[in-house]
């Protein structure tokens, strides 16, 4: 009889041999390369299968809602940048619109179009990041590089308009910070041509690719009923075939005047979510192109070129009492304030001096303007909506982005609640991954597009 080898000798002799199968507990995150941002998935595994999962969030909690309560209404704008830091413009505008709803004012037509244009550009950035990152985690690194390249072109547009790429703080209660720059339409067309090419390339690379399909089709699926019960909106809900898009069902700003399709999926799995996002980027580009065409006010040209005078000369003339016709003169502003002159401001901002800062000509050139300016920035003054509450929802890149603002009649919000669009899908994540393989966590988590800033606030 041959001697048993070592493997045969120890087989079935380990300490766990009598106990039957034992489940393994695994932490993914908080610091894991596939957890975009910081989040912890605590999973119980039976072999390769996820038996049970729990998700822990809050690692990026910055007390957004508490911070909003201590400053005037416009002070919350920079904080909203940091909610969804991939598409901050939508947060800016949604918050501003909530306060405007509370005030009962309507913004100018041109401003509505600007908000649509900038929101849709942000939405494309957001979808590019989401699709690119989750494709990268499945091994398609090229897709990530291509999409980040396209996002770069779009961020250049954002930079052109707002002066920043990420922390843009461009929205204002009652309007936007400044008008669109010169020749913006031409730059948009150029950037969109590049983006369309990237989308085409990505479709060629991954849509229909065997490896990509195997990882995505049928993985992380939620039925339409489940998606609704979990409060999930946005691309995830549309991927399960429910045509819920706030831009269509409750059109705000200028969305009712634009022609676009609500992109729908069928199965609610990761692959449909990918297709919905790819389709929405094309629709967003269509919307921006139409909005640029239909925007009132046309291209922005300074038609009084050569007649501008510098600010200090303007103030001097005012001090010397040479005020005749002074308020009608345009002034040349520093680059930081460009687009905030009288002309631009009257196009993009509400004509309500209790809400919007006066144009710089008036603030520098007349005592009334200066007083108006101070009445809006002094502690205890500023924007004071009547007591009451309002909820405004915009279609964020991840779903319904709602702001619930309560006013007590003072100059700072009594309560600001942000309804984060990516909290419900993260809450439903255990439901999506339980019963699936460990490797399926990665594409599912990628398709949820968790954004720590708005999830943890």
């Amino acid at each position, binding site marked *: 009889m041959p001697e048993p080898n070592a493997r045969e000798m120890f087989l079935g002799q380990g300490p766990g041999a009598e106990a039957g199968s034992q489940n393994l507990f695994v932490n993914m995150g908080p610091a894991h390369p596939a957890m975009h941002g910081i989040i912890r998935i605590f999973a119980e595994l039976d072999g390769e299968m996820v038996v049970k999962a729990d998700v822990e*969030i809050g690692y990026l909690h910055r007390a957004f809602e508490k*911070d909003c309560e201590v400053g005037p209404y416009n002070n919350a704008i920079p904080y909203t940048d940091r909610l969804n830091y991939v598409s901050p413009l939508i947060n800016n505008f949604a918050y501003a619109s909530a306060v405007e709803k509370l005030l009962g004012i309507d913004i100018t037509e041109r401003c509505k179009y600007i908000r649509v244009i900038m929101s849709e550009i942000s939405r494309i950035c957001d979808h590019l990041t989401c699709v690119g990152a989750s494709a990268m985690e499945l091994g398609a690194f090229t897709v990530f590089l291509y999409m980040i390249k396209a996002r770069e072109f779009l961020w250049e547009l954002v930079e052109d308009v707002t002066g920043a790429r990420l922390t843009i703080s461009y929205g204002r209660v009652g309007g936007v910070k400044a008008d669109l720059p010169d020749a913006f339409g031409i730059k948009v067309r150029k950037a969109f041509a590049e983006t369309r090419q990237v989308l085409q390339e990505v479709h060629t690379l991954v849509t229909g690719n065997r490896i990509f399909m195997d990882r995505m089709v049928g993985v992380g699926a939620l039925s339409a009923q489940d998606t609704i019960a979990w*409060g999930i*909106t946005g691309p995830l809900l549309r991927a399960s075939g429910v045509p819920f898009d706030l831009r269509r069902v409750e059109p705000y700003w200028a969305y009712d005047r634009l022609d676009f399709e609500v992109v729908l999926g069928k199965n609610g799995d990761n692959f449909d979510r990918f297709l919905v996002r790819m389709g929405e980027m094309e629709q967003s580009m269509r919307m921006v192109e139409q909005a640029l065409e239909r925007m009132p006010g046309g291209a922005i040209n300074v038609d009084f070129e050569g007649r501008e005078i510098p600010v200090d000369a303007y103030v001097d003339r005012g001090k010397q009492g040479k005020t005749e016709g002074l308020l009608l003169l345009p002034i040349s502003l520093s680059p930081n304030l460009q687009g905030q002159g009288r002309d631009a401001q009257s196009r993009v901002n509400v004509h309500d001096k209790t809400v919007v800062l006066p144009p710089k000509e008036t603030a520098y050139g007349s005592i009334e303007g200066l007083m108006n300016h101070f009445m809006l920035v002094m502690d205890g003054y500023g924007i004071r909506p009547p007591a009451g509450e309002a909820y405004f929802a915009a279609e964020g890149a991840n779903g319904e982005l709602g702001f619930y603002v309560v006013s*007590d009649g003072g100059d700072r919000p009594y309560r600001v*609640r942000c309804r984060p669009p990516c909290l*419900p899908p993260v809450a439903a994540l255990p439901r999506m991954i339980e019963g699936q393989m460990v490797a399926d966590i990665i594409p599912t988590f990628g398709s949820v597009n968790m954004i720590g800033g708005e999830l943890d606030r």
Partner: protein
Amino acid sequence: MDGSAILARLRGRLGARVLETHEHRGDHTAVIAPDGILDALRYCRDDAELGFDLLMDLTAVDYAKYPGREDGPRFDVVYHLYSVPHNHRVRLKVPVEQDAASVSSATSLWPIANWLEREVWDMFGIRFDGHPDLRRLLLYEEFVGHPLRKDYPIDRRQPLIGPHV
């Protein structure tokens, strides 16, 4: 359905348990007595004409320093409901006293209420009866107090905690 019709339908069903209804800036609100909230939510979800199948948001407001509400119930728990088939919205509010800060949990109706109620417990210290797992959501277990309460100062420091042993 029109907002005021929704409120009328709720009043018809719940009677005196609807304490008050109002409309502000196009948002329709019904204030429901604490003992009627679960019935109200279930009715909103299951009634064919209301059809509020989506719990959009669940949050709370601390009215401790609100002019005119200093003596009333301290908190309001606020539900924002949306109906996908009918495309309408309503807001339900439940006044909650500080001493008995607890409301019936909506987890049996919508699974998403689980996390939203955990957040309200975390931030306001309002308990939800019947919640299966009422842990803090955003903060950590050792955190002292509930930061969105109006009597929690924004600059309060929390004791440092070490690693779990």
